[in-house]
Each structure stands twice: as C-alpha cells, then as structure tokens.
C-alpha cells in the first residue's frame, strides 16, 4: 500500500464483555442478549467518548457470519440503530472471515484517507453462542473454501491448524513445540485475568501449566495435535472505535494524548482455493507484517506491544516467526522463554488475545485495535504495561481463514 498521505487517528475504543464459557453470567440454556445488543453497546460506548453521533460522518461494521449464527444479514442497517443521530448517514458492512474487524478498520481508514470522512464509527461484532460448537464449526468453516469442507475435519478450523501443528511437530519436535504452546496458553489466561471484559477474567486455575499438560490432544474426540486449551474461545462480543482525521479529533474534542495515530497499514489476500504453500509458515501474515512495517518506516524492534491473531496457540508460534521475532523453528522457544509475556521482550496480547480475552470472529480485529489504543494511551487499567517515549509503537495482526485475509496495522501514540 502507498504511504499514508493524510494523518489518520483512532480513539474512543470500547469493548463489551466477551461472553461465553468461562464467564459466570454465561448460561447456554438461558436466553442471552442478541447481536443488536452488542452492536448498540459497543457503538454507544464509542459515541459517548467522541461527543455523540452528531460528530460521526459514517459508520462501518465488520462481521463474519451473522447470516448463519443469527439469521441476520444487512448489518449496515444496524449502525443507525445505535443512535438516532446516525440515521441517513453512510454505513457499510464488510466481511473477511475472522479478519472482518480489521477490514472494517481498513475501510474506515480509507474513508479518512480519501477525505470523504473525518470521523468514522467502526464496530466489529459476532454473536456465536447461538448454536453448539459442532454446528458453529460448520459456520466457521465458511472461512475456508467450501469445496474442501467435505474432506475437512468435523471441527474444520481446529483441524486445519492441527495439521499446521502436526507439520511443526514433525519438523521441530512435538515436545519442544508444545512447551511454547503451553506458555502461550499460560500468558493468555494470566493476561485475561487482568481485563474485566475478558472471557477468562474469572479463571482461577492454580496451575495452568499442569492443566495444559494433563489435556493431551486426542484425535478421537477432537483433533490430533491440539487440545481445547490451544484454541480460541467461542464468543459473543463487539468492539467499537472511532477512526478520525486531524479535523475529526478537533471536532470530537479528543486530545492527542488520548489518541493513536495509524502510521502503517497493509492488507494482503491469499488465494483461498489454494492450500497453504508451507504448513509451518504463515506466509500471508509474513508479507502483511513486512509491508506494514515498511509502510510505517519502523522495525519490529521499535514495537512496544503487539496484538496478534492467536486463533490457536500454534498460530501464535508461527506468527512470532513470520514477524521475524524468531527464526523458523525457534518461535516455540522464544515464547517458552517468556519473551511474549507482559514483562517480556515484546508484550503480546496483553488482555488475553483470542485464547484468553475471546474471539468474536468478526469483531476481533476491532478488539485488537482497542487494546493497542488502551495500552498506548494509558487506558488499559490493571492490564496496563509500561510504554515509553522511545518505543511508542503497537501493531495488530488480524487473520481471516487459514492465512488468507490479513490486515496488519501499526499505531503510535499520537502526541509522542
């Protein structure tokens, strides 16, 4: 992508609770809030911080599969539901599987870059607990090529990433790989315990490592190379954030200390009908991350924090390698050595990521941006990590499907 020709900011992030197994208030047998509730809460959460709907020029909503999870299409029509002030303003729904959230961000960013809007309300949402996991797996399999569904696993995407984990085990050793994956899980839960909206916020397991070790992968009941702790959560949640120009910030009265500037973005698409070229590499992520860093003019060593798409723990390992934090085959060790822990070399997924905070598929990309915004502006509460002026950068990587749609965005605290 071209260098950004206009300054683009984000501010006023808001996350709903990520509801699903793990949260005390979640009871699959009782009625729960619908998708409308989440869109409204996240949208209003952002509007409240930017002086109301009157300041908004347009809306973008990212969602993956409401058509099946909620029997609801036409989600752009729900943006004006958030507030009467959004009635008759432009609104767009975007979809790119689990990268729908970041595609919504990219769409908003492009509107600001095109000078067609100064304030874009961006919402990402998914409400998935409307069905049992075995049927949800069918819906989520839509992120792959349907022609491959028949030969795929009952749990299609866990099956895809189990194959990736299997290939990694074969190349570098299973015991070695799972050390890194275990630490990934431990970090996810420990970080989630610091974030009140996280699905694993109330997780009270004493010895997470022992729990992980106890749950061996079992292909008879699940997939061959992953256990359920290696997997992201099934979540109902939405996140909202405002994408703004310089004028937009002024209009909304947002000081730059409370905003992040988008300094680089890359959007990459891999042919969905092709198998991944190398199961032990996330090629599209590698390309997107490199482009975004180039676009921003920084290196990975400048990053203070990172939000990456750990739909499965093995994706965490492979992404660390794709980004260049570790050489191929050394990602597991890099993580096992606590380099991605909140006090490590590159604090990653500081509110739990997809495994700890939750994974409302179409909303995840926006949630990642909100987390980076919180961290860089000092709004992360108990989950706050130290951010210094000499390293004011954060990065998000949101992936759709098996390394098919990838959006990488680089942020900087706006007043530094």
């Amino acid at each position, binding site marked *: 992508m071209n260098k950004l020709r206009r300054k683009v900011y984000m501010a006023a992030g808001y996350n709903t609770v990520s509801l699903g197994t793990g949260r005390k208030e979640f009871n699959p047998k009782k009625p729960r809030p619908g998708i409308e509730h989440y869109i409204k809460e996240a949208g209003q959460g952002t509007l409240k911080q930017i002086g109301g709907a009157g300041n908004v020029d347009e809306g973008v909503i990212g969602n993956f599969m409401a058509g099946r999870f909620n029997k609801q299409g036409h989600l752009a029509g729900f943006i004006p539901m958030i507030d009467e002030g959004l009635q008759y303003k432009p609104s767009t729904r975007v979809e790119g599987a689990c990268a729908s959230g970041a595609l919504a961000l990219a769409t908003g960013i492009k509107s600001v870059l095109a000078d067609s809007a100064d304030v874009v309300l961006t919402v990402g949402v998914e409400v998935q607990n409307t069905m049992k996991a075995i049927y949800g797996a069918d819906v989520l*399999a839509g992120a792959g090529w349907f022609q491959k569904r028949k030969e795929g696993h009952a749990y299609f995407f866990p099956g895809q990433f189990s194959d990736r984990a299997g290939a990694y085990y074969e190349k570098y050793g299973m015991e070695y790989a799972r050390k890194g994956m275990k630490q990934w899980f431990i970090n996810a839960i420990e970080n989630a315990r610091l974030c009140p909206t996280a699905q694993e916020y109330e997780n009270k397991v004493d010895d997470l490592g022992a729990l992980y070790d106890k749950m061996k992968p079992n292909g008879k009941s699940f997939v061959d190379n992953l256990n359920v702790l290696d997997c992201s959560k099934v979540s109902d949640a939405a996140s909202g954030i405002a994408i703004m120009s310089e004028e937009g910030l002024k209009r909304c009265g947002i000081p730059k200390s409370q905003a992040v500037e988008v300094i680089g973005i890359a959007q990459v698409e891999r042919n969905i009908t092709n198998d991944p070229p190398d199961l032990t590499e996330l090629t599209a992520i590698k390309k997107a991350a490199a482009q975004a860093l180039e676009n921003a003019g920084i290196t990975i060593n400048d990053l203070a924090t990172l939000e990456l798409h750990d739909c499965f723990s093995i994706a965490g390992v492979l992404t660390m390698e794709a980004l260049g934090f570790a050489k191929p085959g050394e990602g597991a060790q890099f993580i096992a050595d606590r380099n991605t822990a909140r006090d490590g070399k590159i604090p990653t997924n500081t509110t739990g990521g997809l495994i700890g905070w939750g994974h409302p598929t179409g909303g995840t990309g926006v949630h990642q941006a909100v987390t980076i915004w919180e961290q860089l502006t000092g709004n992360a509460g108990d989950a706050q990590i130290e951010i210094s002026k000499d390293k004011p950068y954060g990065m998000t990587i949101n992936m759709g499907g098996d390394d098919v749609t990838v959006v990488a965005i680089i942020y900087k605290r706006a007043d530094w």
Partner: protein
Amino acid sequence: MTYDERLQNVSVLGAAGKMGSGILLLTAVEMADLSLKPENKGKTFALNAIDVSSAGLAGLMRYLKSQVLKIAEKKTVLLRQLYKERKDLIENEDIINQYIFDVMNIVRPTMRVEAAYDSNIIFEAIIENQDLKIKLFKQIDENNTGKPWFFTNTSSVPIHLLDEGANLNGRILGFHFYNPPAVQRLVELITTDKTVPEMIEFANSYAKNLRKIIVPSNDKAGFIGNGHFMRDALHGIKEVERLSKDMPFVEALYMINKVSQDFLVRPMGIFQLIDYVGIDVVKFIMEVMNPHLPDEDLHSDLLDKMMDMGVKGGQNSDGSQKDGFLKYERGKPVAVFNPDTKEYVEISTFQQKCNEKLGALPQTWKPWKVVNFSRGKKEAMLEAYFKELAGMDTLGAKLAKSYNAKSNEIGNFLVSSGVSNSADDVNTVMLTGFYHAYGPINDYLK
C-alpha cells in the same frame, strides 16, 4: 451366525419403559453403526420396539430422537468417517441429521408381540413379574423358528427359573442394566450352568461395543446390586424405626438419611435413593427376592404402609423426582413424610436440632462430589476421613460406623453366599452402579 448377523433383527419387550427405552436406544445406535459398515451395505437391520402402551411408544420415539441427536453431536468426528462416501453430506449438521434418520429408520414401534417371532435376540425389560416373563418367553420361543436368545433385564428373578419355566434350554441370560441405561456404565451379567456359551461371548462383545463394564453375578435372587441395596435400605429403615422410639419419626428419618449420605460420603441418602428408585419398585424387588432367601426376611411394614397411602416416589416422565419419604424442590429434599399425619414436615423446622444431636461432621469431611472426583487423592481423603470418624463418639459418628459395618457385612455376605465371585465384583457394582466413592468391602474402620 456372526455378531452382525445376530443383530440384524432384535426385539425389545417393554421398550417404552424407563429401562426398556434406554436399552432400545443403545441397541438402535449399535445396530445403526453396524448397518453403516461397508460390508453390511444393503442389509436390513430391524429393531422392534414392543410395548403395551401406544402413548408410551409415541413418547419413546420422541425420547429416541432427542437422545440420538445428543449421541450424534458427540461423535460427529467418527460419523464424518462413516459417511465419507456420501458426497451429499458435507456439513456436520447434514451428517448428524442423516445419522438420526438412520437410527430411527431401524426402529419399528409396535404393540404386537408377534413382531418378536422373527428376531434373533429378545431383550426383556418388562415389570418384575416372573410368570408374565415366562409366558412371553414361551410364546415367542414357540413361534420363532430361529431359536432366539433371550436377554432379560431382571434385577431380581433367578435366571434358571425363567429358563426352566419357558423351556429355553440355556438360551437366556441376565443382562442387567442400571438406571438410566444410556448413562450408567455397569451391566450385571448373570449366567447359569446351562447358558449357551456363544451367548456369553456375544454378551461380552455387545457390552464392550456399548462401552459398558460387565460384572458377573451368580444366579441368586437380587444378584449383587439389589442384593446390597435392598439389605442396605432395610437397615436404614430399621434404624429409623429404632430411633423413632425416642424421637419423632420425621427427625429419625432425616438423621438416618443424613448419616447415610454425608457421614458415609455417598451421593445420596438411603431414603432419597429409595425414592429415586421408587418405593413401589423397592417393595416389589423385595417381594421377588424374599421367597428365594429362606434364612432372611426381606420385607418392610413401613414400605407397605407407604404404598397403602399411595406414596410411591419414583420419577416423572421429565426425569424430575416425585415425592416419597422425602418431598423435593428442584431435586433437593425439603420435607419428610409423616405416615401418622400423612403430611410432610418441613426439614427446616427441625434440622438444626437434629444436626446438633448428630454432632458435627469430622473436620476432614468433604462432600461426595469432591471426594469421588478427586483423581489420585480419593483414597488418601477417605482414609483420613474414616480415621477421624473412628475416633469420634458423637451420635452421628456412631450411626455412621454402625451403618458402614452393616454395609460391609452385606458385601461380605454376597461373596460368602455365592452371589458374587469376589469382593472386587461387589465393590465394582457399588462404585459404578451406585456411584459410591468406595466399595462396601473396605478396611477403613478396622
């Protein structure tokens, strides 16, 4: 005849009953799985669900559909393999729906016993009526040219009496599921000297495929499970009768129920268990067993009295508990029945007084749920608990020690009287069939 061929035509008598419906479900699923094997392509599998109640059969089909759905959802990973060649079945939902259809398609609900005339196997789960069982077995056997095998679910009638009464020449064995059959893993297998060896071999394979644990029991009335339960229940009743000479009946019953649950670390108290099984069923099983036990009298006037007053316990069709000795709210006992006034007395009105009389539970006590599911720590927890209990002199501790001693005595009696081949078998039945945390034959208090 191979295992698969044997299961091509099966009948379940009493299919709409609580036990029958479970047996039918498990068998239908096993038959459907066989029918999906490539080598069985084109073969017809038929399972006759025979019952006297038309409404019951309608309910059975609803139950079956809901249960097969759950089973299919749990084993979708395997089902995708079984339906690999079906190109039209792509998503999990397609496969699950097809499997439900394939299982239901095997079942033929009917009120006519004649359907069993073509079956290779007849599972029997009708009421515990020896004469009726013999009459039906005889009728089917005389009209079925295939010399069918009879699997009876009786929990109390000696198998040799059914064999002799129906002239089956060893083509019958006891295959006693526990309630509910779809969940409980225990099956008591009762054979006689005359039982056809191939039948025993088949029974073992069938149980293995159903992932059941088989415990052999000898052909003595009541077998192991009811052999322990009935005597254990009678002990509880006698203790209540003894205590109620000095205190109100409802308080005595509350205390013995509490002792047999909390102090003995069992999943439920003895009177809750009687209610769960049904006062009528317990009374009936005792009546079936009693004539075969010349040195004992398995009988309770109290059970007769409760039945006369129409207080039967048991469960509603939705699985909720009916009131019996105890009254239940959301599955928990809240009151005790007073047979003199025919009214329930709220537990809360005397609970504190009774608990004080019993004395505190040992400090090392933990609820059954915690103990039973503490893998690797259970034995140490139980040892510490009983050691502390042994040194206590409260009323609760005394009653518990005496209750445990009685349970121990019953367990040993089942071995010495030849009902069970070993102490291990007795303990396995109580651990898996009754979900006890420990077997009755133990050394905790010795």
